[in-house]
């Protein structure tokens, strides 16, 4: 439901392709959840737990993925923001990473176990507070598409960095690295 709301707001704020993609993921996720729930009711069993022992990745594979990620950042960073080549490249990589993540962790990982609720709520609180701060800046802008110097959003603050090829490539490299980190969790 949250994902669908984000999809709607993304679409009406002038990003129909992004909105469609998010809506597609939301629908697939809802369908998959319903199917899993129905199956677990029928079999009266929980889905099998996966992977608890940690295993180190092979250095050669890590080097190959790092080189591919840097190559992606260098090439896609040369495209103008919001151009079709940049859009297709970023959506393509995002779709591949989400599809890989959908299947579960690609390698064995350490089970974090139960975490302390108070400690975890600190992270959640920080995330929500930062989101509300960004939202207040967005609302105080003259319009959704019009940035304000008095109340800059993070997007507005990063605009100067993303005007150059080098800046875009650095940000893309960080984004790709974050995706690689997350998909291996």
């Amino acid at each position, binding site marked *: 439901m949250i*994902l669908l709301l984000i999809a709607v707001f993304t679409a009406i704020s002038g990003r129909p392709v992004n909105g469609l993609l998010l809506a597609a993921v939301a629908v697939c996720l809802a369908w998959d959840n319903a199917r899993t729930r129905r199956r677990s009711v029928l079999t009266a069993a929980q889905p099998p737990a996966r992977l608890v022992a940690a295993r180190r990745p092979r250095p050669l594979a890590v080097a190959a993925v790092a080189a591919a990620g840097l190559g992606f950042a260098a090439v896609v960073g040369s495209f103008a923001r*919001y151009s079709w080549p940049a859009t297709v490249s970023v959506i393509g990589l995002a779709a591949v990473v989400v599809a890989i993540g959908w299947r579960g962790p690609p390698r064995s990982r350490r089970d974090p176990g139960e975490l302390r609720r108070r400690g975890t709520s600190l992270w959640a609180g*920080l995330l929500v507070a930062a989101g509300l701060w960004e939202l207040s800046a967005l609302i105080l802008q003259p319009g959704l598409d019009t940035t304000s110097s*008095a109340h800059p959003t993070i997007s507005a603050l990063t605009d100067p960095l993303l005007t150059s090829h080098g800046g875009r490539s650095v940000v893309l490299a960080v984004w790709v690295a974050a995706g690689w980190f997350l998909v291996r969790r």
Partner: protein
Amino acid sequence: MNSHDITVFGYLVFLLAGVVLELLARWTRLRIPSLEAALARAMRTRTGRVGVLVAWAWLGLHFFAR
């Protein structure tokens, strides 16, 4: 200090708070999970896993895709 400075200062405070939380998690005995552990916990279910990955994907789309 004008409203621009206050807004930017707010972002910096949140960034600093995140760094402090991570340092407390890794270097002290306080029962605070590291960001990695919190993410790993959130990603134990398929919904959580896909949700976190879509949040990551959204960032890329927001900054680069039309």
